[in-house]
């Protein structure tokens, strides 16, 4: 039994203190809500505490891991986790995004009279899961943390239980999430089965007895030795399909607009940013880790997925009038662009770091832009929360100039228009793709960006330009912007997000040495 002791000694809990702290915070938030005296009109402190706590944690994490003590690659928890600088960057990313979700959520919950504590609790749990997910080095760990995140998201999507749309989105997300995790699991099982019994399945490998067949490192060498093994290939593509669901890549993108449409605005943002980013990071881990040996097999498939995703996302978004659906589909298109970066990282001569950093930068930019867009959208008081039509934004620029400014900057950044950071990220992406000689995907990307101008600019047009004629029909919709009030804090956050996307569009020095 001493051998179990070595496993036990490998569990150094200190190394995941941010996750632990986050989970602790989540529990505190839940209990604060439990013991608050709401019936006496005393407002719950759970929201402000969650925001403050996550902000603190983020800044602490940012400085501790990225500035002062960058982590070097190491594997802990008996091979469950592998930590490194890139993982730390992603952890900071998730913390920041969760912080922003909490801010958006705070407002949203107050406006819709929903439970506060549980929302922040689930957000924080999900973030903890995401942070572990992007560090996992083992399929079991990957599965468990993925499911934790997924379960949190199922609840969050259906959070507004008064709204049938929210519930419907929840059930859709749940069904397809479960379906895709089954696919993922089947893939993992195939990999495991062949990896654990190479001789039964006619695969070449000898030293398997002492290696964990679920760990990434084992599978990397194993797959590299058996690139033509059909069951392994089937396992790989099934795992890939599970990840494709997460990032919303074709043909597993179909759930995206419906779920985005129905879920509460902050959750949509959370889904669009964190969940997708996690999917990409895991995919990156996979293609560089276990699937690193069979990239020749994966690349055509990924190329096809990327192209199809770009076209489908952009074209379907063109036909949308509902802004949330449109953003969902544009997110699909962005997933396609990012897949090109993933492919580039597989192809990169020498080291793949540049492509990875481009991916990170793109995700970061996507986050700033998405949150500013969703933030403004969350402010609108539409008759029904999920129904954001283009027409709601008619002539916003004159009604609420600063909101229009933030929104337009966000959209432009998403569209990749200079001087916003979205442009630089696209430039970097194109340059990386060119270096990796992915000409076909590059062409698809360029065409996709051009198509995307149609709907992004269509929205900007709605915001900035005066209507040709005023509504002459009697059923004049209620102006969703009339009664909007914003706290200074939200304003500051949104403006600083906008500033970030402008500043990083013009000056990338903080990232400079990474590209």
């Amino acid at each position, binding site marked *: 039994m001493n051998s179990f002791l070595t496993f036990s000694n490998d569990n150094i809990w200190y190394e995941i203190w941010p996750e632990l702290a986050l989970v602790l915070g989540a529990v505190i938030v839940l209990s604060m809500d439990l013991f608050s005296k709401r019936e006496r009109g005393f407002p719950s402190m759970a929201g402000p505490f969650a925001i403050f706590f996550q902000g603190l944690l983020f800044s602490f994490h940012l400085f501790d891991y990225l500035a002062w003590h960058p982590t070097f690659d190491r594997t802990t928890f008996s091979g469950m986790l592998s930590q490194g600088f890139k993982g730390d960057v992603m952890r900071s990313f998730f913390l920041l995004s969760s912080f922003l979700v909490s801010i958006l959520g705070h407002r949203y919950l107050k406006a819709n009279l929903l439970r506060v504590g549980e929302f922040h609790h689930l957000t924080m749990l999900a973030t903890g899961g995401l942070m572990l997910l992007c560090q996992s080095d083992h399929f079991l760990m990957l599965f468990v943390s993925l499911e934790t995140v997924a379960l949190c998201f199922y609840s969050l999507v259906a959070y507004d239980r008064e709204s049938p749309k929210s519930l419907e989105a929840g059930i859709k997300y749940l069904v397809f999430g479960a379906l895709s995790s089954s696919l993922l699991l089947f893939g993992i099982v195939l990999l495991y089965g062949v990896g654990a019994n190479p001789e039964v399945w006619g695969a070449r490998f000898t030293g398997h007895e002492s290696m964990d067949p679920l760990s990434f490192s084992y599978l990397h060498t194993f797959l590299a030795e058996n690139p033509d093994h059909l069951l392994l290939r089937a396992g790989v593509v099934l795992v890939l399909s599970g990840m494709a669901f997460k990032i919303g890549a074709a043909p597993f993108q179909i759930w995206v607009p419906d779920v985005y449409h129905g879920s509460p605005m902050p959750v949509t943002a959370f889904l669009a940013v964190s969940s997708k980013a996690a999917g990409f990071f895991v995919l990156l881990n996979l293609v560089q880790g276990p699937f690193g040996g069979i990239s020749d097999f994966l690349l055509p498939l990924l190329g096809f997925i990327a192209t199809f995703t770009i076209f489908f996302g952009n074209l379907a978004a063109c036909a949308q009038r509902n802004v949330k659906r449109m953003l969902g589909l544009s997110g699909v298109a962005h997933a396609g662009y990012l897949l090109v970066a993933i492919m580039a990282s597989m192809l990169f001569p020498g080291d793949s770091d540049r492509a990875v950093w481009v991916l990170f930068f793109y995700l970061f930019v996507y986050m700033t832009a998405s949150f500013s867009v969703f933030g403004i959208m969350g402010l609108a008081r539409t008759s029904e929360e999920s129904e954001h039509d283009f027409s709601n934004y008619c002539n916003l620029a004159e009604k609420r100039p600063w909101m229009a400014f933030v929104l337009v900057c966000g959209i432009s950044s998403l569209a990749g228009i*200079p001087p916003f950071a979205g442009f630089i990220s696209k430039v970097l992406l194109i340059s990386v793709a*060119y270096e990796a000689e992915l000409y076909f995907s590059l062409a698809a990307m*360029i065409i996709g960006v051009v198509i995307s101008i149609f709907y992004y600019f269509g929205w900007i047009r709605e915001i900035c*330009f*005066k209507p040709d004629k005023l509504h002459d029909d009697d059923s004049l919709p209620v102006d969703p912007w009339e009664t909007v009030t914003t706290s200074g804090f939200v304003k500051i956050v949104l403006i600083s997000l906008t500033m970030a996307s402008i500043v990083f569009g013009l000056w990338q020095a903080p990232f400079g040495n990474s590209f």
Partner: protein
Amino acid sequence: MNFDQIILLGSIFIPALASIVLFLEICKSDKIAKKIAYFSFGFPFISGILLFLRFDNSLEGYDFVVLFSRTGLQELNIHFHLGLNGISSPLFAMAGIVGMGAGITAIHSGVDRLRLYLALLLFMQSGLMGLFASIDLFFYYLFHEFALIPTFIMIGIWGSRDRKSIALELTIYLTLGALVSLGGLIALNVLVDAPNFDFPSLSRAVSELGMESSVQSNIFGLLLFGFGILVALFPFHTWAPRGYDAAPTSVSMLHAGVLKKFGLYGLIQIASPLLPDGAMFWSPLLLWLALGNVLFVGLVAVSQSNLKSMIGYGSVMHMGYCFLGIAVCSSLGAGSAVMLMVAHGLSVSLMFMLAHNLYTRTGTFEMDDMGGMASKTPLLACFFIAATLATIGLPGFGNFWGEFGVFLSLGEQTQHRLFLFLAALGIIISAIFGLRAVAKIFFGSASEAHSSRKKNNQISDLSFFEMIPAGIILASLLFLGLWPVVVSQRVDREIQTRFESQDRTYFSQTTPPCCPPEQESLDLNSSLPSKEKFLSNPEY
């Protein structure tokens, strides 16, 4: 940092700053806003001319160089690198002049939300100045986009009929062009991997690398069609007349006059000299497309009855000459294209301005509804005729040199003579539509619609603030026409070094122009071509 560098930076950043100040509505009164706008349009104007005059022609390459290397993209070899050379300094000055004209027109145009209008226009101006001052290709592109974005917004807000759909069409079209050319630039950056992403280091690296011609032609193709869409090359030109038709005047002026030169500038400054084999590869196709610009679009311009679209089509037509100059792949062609770009920028913006002035008087752009304006507005007529004649390439105005040079360059090779013949038909076509417009608008007697309108409000001649910008631009055109050597010597020097390799390639393929054996007996001061080429070419 010396005086020149400061005003170079100032000419880019003062409009940008002013734009931000106006945009944030720091000043609440239109009066102060106008003063700010005057200053910040005036600064690039003066500094453009000043820098043009102070340009050290004896210097090889760039003058007034400013370099900031820590932009964050230094790992991609991208630095903030500004400076002017012989090709860019006249264009820089032209941008300043046209900007001044557009600015004054805008300030006195009396649009609603004037401050926003001025802010966007100033932003555009900043981008335009930066575009021509950038040595680094990335920032060159970035500044172009800076200038492009306000175009869309301004068309959308202040445009005329169909503004929304036109703004959208324009955006998609130009984004396509911009992205394709961006792809080309990135390809160049990646393939060459020079220490800097600017012209001199790229050309140095290319000459060391010796790019394969198939690679060259691929990249050149990207750049050609990307830039071509931005410059309205023949089958991709339909956005231009529609866009100019819808855009507010100042935007039309700046876009048609200056911004559209971006692509040509890119082709002349970057694509052709760096990728001579690529240029050769695409040359036959480009010749036909450019001919399409000249003849097809020219004839379409003939059938226009709307003044503004006629000017739009006309400007697209003349872009064809620039493309022809580029397509012949010689320094003469390219240099003439530069001359034509400068002059065309001035003349077409003048045309748009005057069309706007006509519109404020008659309330229409339909030429059939005007007539006999010359008796009421002699000064406007005078300016308009001058501008028209400048556009159609009358000597005495700058355009002539460019057009004639292009024709001359087309004549160099026997296989281009057919194009010479067809392209020269353009001078007749442009005369037809230009003079028809003049005759319809200014000559004859007033049309019924017009005279009934005239009864209601008295039509006045150009006011002082309308005359000043027109006068400035016209004076520059005349200066360029009467004393071209000031510009041409700058262009010449730069273009010769750029196109050295192309001239040589071409020359080795064709028979030399006749050269009598006893050259000494002749007066060699005159323009005997190719003497230097004989010396420089080892095959002879």
